[in-house]
């Protein structure tokens, strides 16, 4: 990595413009992060643009239903490179309590996510910590003109989970042996 790349990364990490994709209560904490008590402007990420054309950081705050996915993917594609994504809260990261047919079980099935923030909703400090971690990641990766993209031979993107990982039978553990309630004999 050359000095010029490092300079570009330094510029990028200190002027993250978030695209607040706030669909639920995590958006309230996102607003609190931008307000004066927590003040995300200390990290250069206060310019929340409500148009994807001017943003480089997508903060998905809240649950995403299947009908919202095309909208979200379109907004993600409209954002210019280089771009990053923070998945904020339990619903955006994994579906949370909403384990239903309508709610997407994790944003990373559809768009690449850089940082996951757990919590329901996360504290503003947690989101600030995510921005700090993302700044570190930006400083260590990426080049000035995107040389790393030219070396790609195949399409890359979020990897689908294997079907066995989605079976609800694996989610709730049923005791195998009735007397001791263990699964040792069942394997």
């Amino acid at each position: 990595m050359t000095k010029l790349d490092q300079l570009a990364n330094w510029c990028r990490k200190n002027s993250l413009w978030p695209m607040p994709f706030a669909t639920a209560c995590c958006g309230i904490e996102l607003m609190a992060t931008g307000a004066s008590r927590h003040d995300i402007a200390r990290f250069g990420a206060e310019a929340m643009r409500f148009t994807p054309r001017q943003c480089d950081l997508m903060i998905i705050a809240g649950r995403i239903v299947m009908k919202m996915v095309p909208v979200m993917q379109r907004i993600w594609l409209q954002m210019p490179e280089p771009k990053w994504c923070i998945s904020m809260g339990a619903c955006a990261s994994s579906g949370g309590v909403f384990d239903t047919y309508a709610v997407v079980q994790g944003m990373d099935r559809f768009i690449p996510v850089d940082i996951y923030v757990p919590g329901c909703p996360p504290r503003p400090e947690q989101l600030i910590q995510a921005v700090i971690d993302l700044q570190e990641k930006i400083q260590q990766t990426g080049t000035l003109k995107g040389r790393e993209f030219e070396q790609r031979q195949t399409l890359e993107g979020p990897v689908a989970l294997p079907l066995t990982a989605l079976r609800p039978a694996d989610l709730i553990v049923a005791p195998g042996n009735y007397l001791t309630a263990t699964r040792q004999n069942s394997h």
Partner: protein
Amino acid sequence: MPVPPSDIRWVEEPKLGLAEMLYLPSIAQGMITTMKRIVQPKITQEFPEQRPQLPANYRGVHRLNRDEQGRVRCVACYMCSTACPAHCIDIVAAPSPWPDREKYPETFVIDELRCIYCGMCEQACPVDAIELTTLCDLTGFSREEMMFDKEKLLSVFDQTVQRGTDPVRTRGGRLGVASELPPEGGVTTSSTAQS
């Protein structure tokens, strides 16, 4: 049904006077507010250096408590995973190698991303094995990294106890009723009558 014209009230824009058209009073008012904020005490919390003052019962990252011999306190009764509204706890029980309990958790995995930090596992636990700490700045780079297994949850216990911010909330350091072996001759109703 159409609205009769007698019920319609047309509101006119207020006429602007000279002061409003010059904008000068409004600018002065705004500058007064700005100057007030400059001299007022600052409320911004400088987060990475200045940590928030959290109450001791704050519900942050989970931990699995150790007993006085350093063993995991959990007895794998599945109460927490049953109470969990998000189904984020996965326990595999095994016969215990220790004489004071029947079972112990062979694996104990909490999906921190799916958890909603409601504290119901802590309330449901009969032996005070699972507790929520005041660690509040957890982030992760991948979903696999956020699946906390037994060793990780025990290391959270070691860290938080060493820091001294999260003391163990137990009943005198002893295991509770649910961990006792069943009495000779089968299960009686005496234990249920006590509760």
